[in-house]
């Protein structure tokens, strides 16, 4: 193999290893830099072949009075943004017509971009949370059968995208919840 080709092969290895590394570092930095809110989540029927291998959920938004179900419809589909009020845990939200790209909704603490329909839903694309396969099923049982309180940190990028962060069970971060229960997820009492 010529010296030139050795250099090219080395560069190609660096590209294949470096690009995922850079994306990982970028993600880690984003988690540190971007503000986050904590929102409650609830189970839904995922109709997924891999059901039980990760948590599947939808967000329970804390709708402002007259802003959620039954309220006046102000936007539709991809043009809908979520205006998030002040507060770190379950802040009040309302739907609004999206502002121009890069701009925030006036009077809102955060602006989330996504889709909405029928005034009863805001879809931010966050539905999955990957957990250890050993705890996935008992955790799912706590979530679906026991209806324990689950919440999730959402990191908000400047573009209005939501990135899932820490998962909480009964107000405790998942790791602390497991440690508190002797290193296991307590079995569901509901048949």
């Amino acid at each position, binding site marked *: 193999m010529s010296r030139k080709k*050795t250099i090219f092969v080395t560069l190609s290895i660096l590209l294949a290893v470096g690009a995922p590394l850079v*994306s990982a570092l970028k993600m880690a930095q984003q988690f540190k830099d971007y503000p986050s809110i904590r929102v409650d989540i609830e189970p839904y029927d995922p109709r997924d072949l891999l059901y039980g291998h990760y948590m599947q959920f939808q967000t329970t938004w804390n709708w402002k009075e007259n802003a959620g179900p039954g309220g006046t419809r102000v936007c539709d589909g991809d043009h809908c943004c979520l205006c998030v009020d002040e507060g770190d845990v379950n802040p009040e939200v309302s739907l609004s017509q999206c502002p121009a790209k890069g701009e925030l909704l006036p009077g809102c603490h955060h602006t989330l971009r996504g889709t909405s329909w029928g005034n009863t839903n805001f879809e931010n694309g966050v539905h999955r949370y990957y*957990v250890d396969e050993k705890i996935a099923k008992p955790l799912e049982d706590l979530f679906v059968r026991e209806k324990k309180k689950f919440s999730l940190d959402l990191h908000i990028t400047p573009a209005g995208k939501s*990135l899932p962060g820490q998962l909480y069970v009964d107000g405790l971060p998942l790791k602390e919840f497991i440690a508190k229960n002797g290193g296991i997820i307590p079995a569901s009492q509901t048949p």
Partner: protein
Amino acid sequence: MAVKHKKLKEWVAAGLMSTEQADSIHAYEEDRKSGRFGRGLVGLSLFAILVGVLSIIAANWNAIPGEAKIGVHLFLNVCVGLVALRAGKKGHDLWREGAALVFMGLTFTLIILIGQVFQLTGTPADAALFWLLITLPFFLLMGRGYMTAAPWMLAFIATVYLVMVEKIQVLPLEQRQLLATLVGVLLPLALMADGAIELFRKLRPALSDVALKAGIVLGILQTSVSLAFWPANQSYRELVISERDGLLTVIIGLGAVAIHAIFYRFYKSAPEIKGGAMLAAAGIVGTVIPLIFPSDDMAIIPALVFIAYWVFIGWLAQGMHKMRYVSLAIAVIAVRIFMIYVELFGSLIDTGFGLISGGIVMLVLIFAARRLNRRMTKIGGAA
């Protein structure tokens, strides 16, 4: 040594070769097959290792922090990449191919791991496209054999389809249908054309061969699926594109076949090229016809067109002396004829007429094909 192979025995008995020649051929083939078996096992072992790594990642071992998992994975990738580089330098082809395959596979599992650690909400198409882009230079530099070419081609085709399924959803329905039909029709043609380019065959014999075969298989598969679903139920009607889009697809597809023919001189060394162009043209027509003329109640006509297409493939394969494809064509036609019976079950009259029509059409097609063959041979002989 006694001649063992049936064909060799026949040829020795017919006086076409001596027993010594038959023994030499037998010994050569046995030696070649044993090498192939070894390479196949190496490939399967490496595949098992990659699936194992993927399973461990999927288990999402909670006890190890995400950063540590990513760090170990990165270290592993660098090590395997360096093994490939070293094997390439020393000229150990099997090691180079194996390490290159594992390196590309590990790059994919690393992307999956990062997505899992950071709970990314990306789609399979995002991951596959990212992987394809960042491993392409390494693959082009280090992957020279079938062990890397075949999995790469599979991954490439899968990525194209994933991107088509996930990324074109934002387009209006008509544009989506047109784009999907165009890619469906043109991708096999592009693969076949690429695989037949002489320069490509010289530089990357394994990859060009895989591209050619993938194009042929993909084209035949798509056309067969398109024809097989032609008589499907009402829901299929939703997929039917407008006549204008269908005609546009045919024009572009036939244009591609014409370009194929113009570039004929660049790949003169490939005798299959004429057959390839004919196969491509039939594929386009077969794929597009069901889209232009939806058929709900005339199940027999789509079945006959399907049979005609496979008779054509068998005829083409026979002309190219690809006897395995001839056997495949016969098997597919047999299955389709049996399906006519299943589809029309309930009315023996319909079944009877269906089977008789199928048989007659097949005989007519065989007769026409033989006649055409004789005429072509005559013209060729006269020239």
